[in-house]
């Protein structure tokens, strides 16, 4: 009997192991290919480059585990960045603008959550609508113009570090750790997995699943807003189409990380490793000078390799 347990456990371990092997292979391969790859400066580059995607990947992973998804994340990212920039340009102190931006993110979460929680529309459906709507708002708020011209201090913040580690990366790592603890050791985590697995049973246990889902969307909006602050600090400018296609990177990291798109399965560690896989891949291929065209093909193949179940179906 005890054998079942090992067999079951291994399936989630397996995907983490696969990630680790992939990362190792990449590290070895790229460092053979290029002497620049393993330099401290490059490691710092990678960590800074994945930070914003990572911050968004956290709530995305949580939402997907809970059986939903937010397709409007890229639009939300762009809108929050623009709102943040306009607030700063409007003379609001940076910290206040940051707080307000996170509130803006929360408001978008309230909006998105409404359709899911109150109207029972699946997240993947309603957020496609809000994706278009929120992107539209990006064009409206500044009549299509980019927002820029921020203070030196703010721009410096985008490249600030603590003991050589980029602040954004630190924040992202802390958030990942917090999310891992949250999902593994708290009420919150139990609810997330329970809802993702079987929403009806969970509701029958007296848990207000709709309200909880709404809460997740709000959290999602807030974290995306946080990511937008770091992104804006790094770029120093926000165009109305900022963040477009970020969603694909976020989804790819989460999905490569073994989180099931069907909900209820997977863990946040996997998402973190998935993020590393993609971040290292991008950077490594850039450094060896592989054309982005082939990069996207390689990324596609990688997605397939990690997601495929090669075993035969029967039994």
């Amino acid at each position, binding site marked *: *009997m*005890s*054998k*079942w*347990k090992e*067999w*079951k456990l291994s399936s989630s371990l397996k995907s983490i192991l696969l990630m680790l092997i992939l990362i190792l292979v990449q590290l070895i391969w790229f460092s053979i290919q290029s002497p620049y790859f393993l330099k401290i400066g490059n490691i710092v580059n990678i960590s800074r480059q994945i930070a914003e995607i990572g911050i968004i990947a956290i709530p995305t992973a949580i939402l997907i585990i809970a059986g939903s998804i937010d397709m409007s994340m890229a639009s939300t990212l762009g809108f929050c960045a623009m709102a943040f920039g306009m607030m700063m340009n409007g003379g609001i102190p940076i910290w206040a603008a940051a707080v307000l931006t996170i509130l803006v993110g929360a408001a978008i979460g309230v909006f998105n959550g409404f359709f899911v929680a109150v109207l029972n529309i699946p997240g993947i459906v309603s957020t496609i609508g809000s994706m278009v709507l929120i992107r539209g708002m990006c064009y409206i708020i500044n009549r299509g113009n980019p927002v820029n011209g921020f203070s030196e201090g703010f721009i410096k913040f985008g490249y600030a570090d603590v003991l050589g580690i980029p602040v954004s990366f630190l924040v992202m790592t802390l958030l990942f750790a917090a999310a891992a603890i949250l999902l593994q*050791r*708290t*009420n*919150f985590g*139990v*609810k997330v*997995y*329970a809802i993702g*697995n*079987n929403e*009806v*049973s*969970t*509701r*029958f*246990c*007296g*848990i*207000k699943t709709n309200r909880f889902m709404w809460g997740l969307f709000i959290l999602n909006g807030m974290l995306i807003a946080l990511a937008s602050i770091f992104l804006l600090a790094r770029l120093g400018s926000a165009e109305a189409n900022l963040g477009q296609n970020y969603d694909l990177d976020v989804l790819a990291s989460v999905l490569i990380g073994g989180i099931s798109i069907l909900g*209820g*399965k997977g863990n946040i560690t996997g998402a973190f490793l998935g993020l590393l896989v993609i971040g290292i891949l991008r950077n490594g291929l850039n450094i060896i000078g592989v054309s982005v065209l082939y990069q996207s093909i390689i990324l596609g193949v990688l997605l397939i390799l990690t997601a495929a179940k090669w075993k035969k179906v*029967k*039994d």
Partner: protein
Amino acid sequence: MNEKPILQIRQVEKRFPGNYVLRKIDLDVYPGEVLGLIGENGAGKSTLMKIITGVYSLDGGEIIFEGQKVSFQNTKEALASGIAIIHQEFNLFQNLSVAENIFLDRDGYHDKGGRVDWKKTRQEARRILKELGAEFDVDTQVSEIGVREQQLIEIAKAISSNAKVIIMDEPSAALPQNEVGHLFDVIRLLKERGCSIIYVSHRMKEIEEICDRVAVLRNGTNVGTMQLANTNMHEIITLMCGREITDYYPHVQLEPGDVALQVEGLTNQYVKNVSFRVHKKEILGIYGLAGSGSVQLAECIFGLNRFREGKIVTVKGTAEKHTPEEAMSLGIAYVPPDRRREGIIKELSVEKNLILPQLRRYSKAGFLTQKKIKSRTIEYMKQLNILAVNSRMLLDNLSGGNQQKVVLARWLDVQPDVLILNEPTRGVDIGAKVEIYALIDKLAQQGLSIVMISSEIPEVIGMCDRVIVMNKGRISGTFASSELNQEVLLNTASVAQGKEG
């Protein structure tokens, strides 16, 4: 029986990763007989049936059908050769019509070019359902019909094919008692035509009534096959459980205590002006045929369904509009009927399934108190005899009966004053059933009020102190168990009454 068997199972073996499920099983099925197949949950009945029809491959032995060794790739091939199966779980397409569910992709119901013959599909479906005593619209989508109708469709699917052997894996589990009669009529008809039936059930009464022979599986081996005429049920059950069971309904009626739950004038679109009381130490049965509103009533009391009028009073307070959370705070707990859909969470551990309604109690500042959870779970696993490797085993890997016990444990742990059980023993084997009954009785003795909604008449009569019968959303009768018998129950449950539906 001197005839040659139509289906022979020879030394069949089956392994799943990690464990042997079937060990050298031998079993013969003769033309025109009804062979009962019984065994505890997890004994391997369904697995054997799935091997015969090609759902699983076998790891040893052979299957001989009409003198030929066969090895089907899937149920479609089996069906084409003459073996049909009704699976234990529904396998219906909720998004397709009744008629189509019966004849989808069946040869003869579409032409060479693949054009579907809708007319024939409908006509034949109508004919077969009529034979089964069911007269519902064959164009209805399956998602819009009840469990009973769905089971009838499964049966119609199997008998529509002129199969020579029909395997029925717990076909009656979702049927109300009165429908089982229809099913048996059909089985007898099939038998007359020379068709063989393998009939799997946990209801001994049914086995006794319909079967010619019965085979008993225990732990993946065939521990005996016998003519029903030469034996008695007691013997069979002892063989099946590996121990003697004497007292099926261990219920002792107690002097009822104070009123624990008072329901007054509940009304919504399903239930009409329902009022009743339950006392401490009392087991109240609610019996009704499908669509009587008994399920909705329970859901109203537990706050899962809204009601327009009426109120619910317990010792802890009164509720008019409420949620499950509030119902719990009133001291009410509810074990839903559809274990898979409404009860368990497959991918969560036993532990987490247990604590789900009481996350606050099992956490400090939001963090789970792991030790407390584990010890409490292990306590329940011992108390209810839940078979699991450890408290972290995923529920998906437990057998149905054990899953049911986990759900029960979950709600006992809430320490309710009133426990509503909706079909608590559906699909559970006799041994486990008796365990659950004993548990229910013990709870009542400890002072709990229990409301038991059930469609199994012997259970209702055997376990309850008082029984409310529901019909079309209203209470159509209340009986003390002493004045009850099957006929009274059925009559009260099905009298035509009122105007609206």
